[in-house]
């Protein structure tokens, strides 16, 4: 077993040579070489669209390379499908879980076992793996009762049942609290010590520096650098990914916080469906000139809260939601827009935008009631076209013009368009859910700067995000949503990540204050 400190010694476990993958005229991977050694944690870095996912899908048998070769322990291999990759010794934990909510943990694990494998002793085997790697799991619990962190442990356990030599993790900490992430890192350390290789894909450069021994950086489908992340800074890694210096978001101090523009007043709302979250007595006040952040782990009521503020779901009482002092709790999203509010939901394709509609039509989608793109009955197609062109130009959206369908844009460019669509109205209140989720670093920085600028011009900005770095970067105050309850807001400058992390995990405010 090689020493973790010198992982590059000896022959590589997996070697990808000259991998090329084309999709029509687009080349996602343009000749990538990658060596992964046993016992190392290898980071794969790159902006969205750099070719990371494509490369990993090729490694896991989900895509066939157009050119190039994969060597496993020196021998060439071809994976027709993920089963073949798993049989060879490559396991993968996806960013989005593929679990059946209504089945138990053990049943979900049994589903992926190779055919013919006995289900006897399954619980025993799950317990063994859980013990060995510190994965706390109750085999009998139904999945829908579990947190994201627990769900991820099922995925990891599933992967480990097949005794893989290489484990690929795609953005594994995006849904975890800082504390859950620490537990994950402990598990990964055990795997490393056992001589297993880890290929780690993440946007979070601090984590990569904490966990990984080597890093390969991709840009536009090519390898542009390799380094020891522990010897780099997060900023230097980011610069390598983007190819230029990342502009730091500049938050001027809030001079004048004005009157309340968005208010929630004892908002309670029962869960819309079986697996949803009930909102309990939420109150908050976002004032002119500030960015208010709401932290929380996915699935703790963020979507429900967003729908209640946007008016996609109506509140029980009219005064539960206030815009500039007007009670709008019983009014729909169109009326709230007319009162000056604007909204950017989390899901870009299918919620904020219709993927098959052109950008011009998508401009109509949220702007039809506030002038310029439609009258009472008829669309103003010329107006919509010029609005879409304006947004594309002003917010630096890389797109094939106002007629390009939304689905043809990259995540970052579509998000810039959707944020631009709302900001160009100069809304008095802007509410965003996960504004930079899956958005590349430079687009994310641009969006954050826009939000700060909007607030400093006198609007109230509410950002719901799972990304603590983002919230600490741009918010003036942060509150935490957990299981449908909202904590008291804290001043960003006088709180810490640890404190917010504890609240995200469900500790009460009293516990947190006590721990100080």
């Amino acid at each position, binding site marked *: 077993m090689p020493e973790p400190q010198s992982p590059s010694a000896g022959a590589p476990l997996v070697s990808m040579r000259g991998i090329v993958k084309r*999709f*029509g005229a687009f080349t996602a991977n343009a000749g990538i070489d990658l060596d992964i050694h046993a016992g190392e944690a290898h980071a794969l870095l790159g902006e969205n669209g750099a070719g990371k996912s494509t490369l990993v899908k090729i490694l896991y048998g989900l895509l066939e390379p157009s050119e190039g070769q994969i060597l496993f322990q020196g021998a060439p291999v071809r994976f*027709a*499908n993920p*089963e*073949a990759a*798993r*049989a060879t010794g490559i396991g993968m934990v996806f960013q989005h879980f593929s679990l059946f909510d209504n089945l138990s943990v053990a049943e979900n694990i049994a589903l992926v076992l*190779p*055919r013919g494998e006995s289900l006897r002793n399954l619980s025993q085997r799950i317990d063994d793996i859980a013990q060995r790697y510190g994965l706390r799991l109750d085999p009998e619990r139904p999945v829908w009762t579990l947190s994201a962190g627990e769900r991820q442990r099922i995925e990891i356990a599933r992967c480990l049942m097949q005794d893989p030599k290489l484990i690929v993790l795609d953005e594994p900490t995006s849904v975890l609290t800082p504390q859950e992430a620490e537990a994950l890192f402990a598990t990964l350390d055990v795997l490393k010590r056992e001589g297993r290789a880890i290929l780690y894909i993440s946007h979070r450069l601090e984590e990569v520096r904490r966990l990984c021994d080597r890093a390969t950086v991709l840009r536009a489908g090519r390898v542009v650098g390799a380094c020891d992340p522990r010897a780099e800074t997060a900023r230097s890694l980011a610069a390598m990914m983007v190819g230029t210096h990342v502009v730091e978001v500049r938050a001027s101090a809030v001079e004048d916080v004005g009157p309340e523009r968005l208010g929630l007043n004892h908002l309670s709302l029962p869960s819309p469906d079986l697996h949803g979250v009930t909102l309990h007595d939420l109150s908050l006040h976002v004032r002119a000139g500030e960015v208010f952040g709401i932290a929380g782990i996915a699935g703790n009521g963020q979507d429900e809260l967003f729908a209640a503020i*946007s*008016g*996609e779901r109506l509140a029980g009482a009219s005064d539960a939601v206030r815009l500039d002092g007007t009670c709008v709790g019983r009014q*729909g*999203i*169109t009326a709230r*827009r007319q009162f000056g509010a604007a*909204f950017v*939901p989390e*899901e870009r*394709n*299918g*919620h*904020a*935008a*219709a*993927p*098959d*509609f052109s950008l011009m*039509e998508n401009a*109509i*989608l*949220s702007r*039809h*009631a506030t002038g310029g793109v*439609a*009258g*009472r*009955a*008829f*669309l103003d*197609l010329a107006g919509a076209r010029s609005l879409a062109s304006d947004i594309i130009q002003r917010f630096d959206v890389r797109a094939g013009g106002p007629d390009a369908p939304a689905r*043809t844009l990259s995540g970052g460019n579509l998000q810039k368009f959707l944020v631009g669509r709302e900001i160009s109205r100069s809304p008095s209140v802007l509410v965003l859910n996960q504004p930079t989720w899956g958005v590349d670093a430079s687009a994310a920085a641009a969006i954050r700067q826009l939000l700060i600028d909007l607030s400093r011009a006198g609007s109230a900005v509410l950002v719901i995000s799972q990304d603590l770095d983002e919230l600490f970067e741009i918010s003036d105050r942060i509150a935490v949503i957990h299981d449908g309850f909202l904590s008291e807001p804290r001043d960003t400058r006088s709180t810490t990540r640890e404190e917010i992390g504890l609240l995200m995990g469900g500790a009460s405010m009293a516990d947190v204050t006590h721990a100080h």
Partner: protein
Amino acid sequence: MRIDLEARGTRSRTLEVAAPLIALAVAILIGGIVVALLGKSPAQAFHVYFIAPLSEVWSLQEVAVKAAPLVLIAIGLSFCFRANLWNIGAEGQFVMGGLAGGAIGVATHGMSPDAQTFWILPAMLAAGTLAGIAYAMIPALLRAKLGVSEILTSLMLVYLAERTLDYFARGPLRDPKGFNFPQSVMFDDVARLPFLMEGERLHVGVLFALIAVAIGVVVLGRTLFGFDVRLVGSAPKAARFAGFSDARLTYAAFAISGGAAGLAGICEVAGQIGQIQPIISPGYGFTAIIVAFLGRLQPIGILLAGLILSLSTIGGEGAQISMKLPLDMTRAFQGILLMCVLAADVFTRYRVRLSFGSRA
């Protein structure tokens, strides 16, 4: 071996236009094989079905007259289908429209010659349209209020409508001097749709179909309501985000398709037939579903598709006479055509990939 469907990244415009044409060609090919298996000449059948009706003025008019209700109903249905509302009950809405409008025709029969009569035909058309709307509101209400599948309710209501018409044709509306035949009196001339040209077969109903196509083009492409319809079908969550109400759209789309079907129904009764009979439709409401999809739910496409389906129906009548091919052949062909269109849709959206890898 496993068959996988992979979504195509970019869809080619040419392919989208060509797909229904290819589907039509494949359906004709399959139909030809069936005809050959029946021991008849496919070439002759093709001629009788698709060429012969185009070669004479009277049969061309017949194609247009038969296409009119199909196009009118299909334009209405396209609003429902685009919004992912599956109104399968246009046949019932057609029948109710024909019955309600026709009842006025029966009631005004033999009015004294000096009475005002100009209102009769417009009243019949209005009654037919409103009856179609009202009948379509049943599945719409059940869906919007109780979440009942509109597929089941709208389809079952077809049979209820047919029974209702049958009852009225044999009972309350029967011609008392009609030797007990289950049919009403013939409507007065003032209760009949005027012909476009003297002595020809083209009646005003054909104009309604063309107007419906024009309205369809404008409403779908240029109005906020049409935008809503398209958006709900394409991305329902985005439509709620845009501020459009699900329930309102359900009522509106069902009203449009029900009204169009009802209007087509009264046009058939006041145009072609001229009286109430136990059966007034050879299945227009169902055939219109094929027309809507063959026309890609686009107004102009629907117009062309209506003409093609009508052509095959007229041709089918010719084939019954000249080739002794059964009427079922025509129905089977229309069914094959729908399957081919749906299959072509799948192939334009997805690429088929065979994977031969064995499971580990």
